[in-house]
């Protein structure tokens, strides 16, 4: 089972990268959600 390390490295990099990407998208989505809510409040105020 030589070179096992390489396989693990490749595998990890793929999934870490994809999850970081999804997480970043999710975080921005949440920020947007907050902005929409605050804008709604402002509209109600006007």
């Amino acid at each position, binding site marked *: 089972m030589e070179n096992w390390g390489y*396989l693990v490295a490749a595998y990890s990099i793929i999934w870490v990268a994809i999850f970081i990407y999804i997480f970043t998208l999710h975080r921005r989505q949440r920020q947007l959600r907050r902005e929409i809510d605050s*804008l709604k409040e402002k509209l109600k105020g006007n």
Partner: protein
Amino acid sequence: MQALKQNTRSVNGLLGLTFALMIAAQFLIFVYVPTERTMGVVQRIFYFHVPLAWNAFLAFAIVFVCSILYLRSRDMKWDRLARSSAEIGLLFTTLVLITGTIWDKPAWGVWWTWDPRLTATLILWFIYLAYLFVSAYATEESQGARYAAVIGIIGFLDVPIVALAIVLWQTQHPSPLIFEGGLTGSMLLTLMVSIVAFTLLYLSLLILRNSLRRDTDEIKKLKQYMDERN
């Protein structure tokens, strides 16, 4: 609001399907498929590398189609879809390069070779980069969209010629990198499932990224409207 709810349901369905198929693919890749004789365990990277490469290319094809549609209609929705696809395409292309490098080292003893696959992928990576840079460095939105669309079209048309040039280069200097033996039935099955799983992943990411872009644009418009009112 109704439309939003319906969309969320089908998106959730897609995400669920992606997840399920990805799990199935993992099982096939790590448990089901037998270890290849010559390269050993490392060869399993192949089942990630190829689907990622296929989707990198698919993403660019989508960029190409959306670019044409944008230039025709000037509807920003095509520009948004194109940019989202380009972003994911860049991500996948980066992963193709990284997995290719990691695979090459134990298999052939070198980190990098100028073989057709890797070199063409590297050039595709740069074309993606050019696309994203142009849309980022434009002086205003519509110009960025136009310019990016032009790169999307030119870049995509360029890809077959790049492939041609590089393959020609390699046939004149054959490298020792040949995939020995064919693909057995189990290998083919695993590869196919993995390709489908990664394609679904690409589509899921595309939809997520695109809706984020759309919402961002909506908010910008809303803010503008409110500023004008005040």
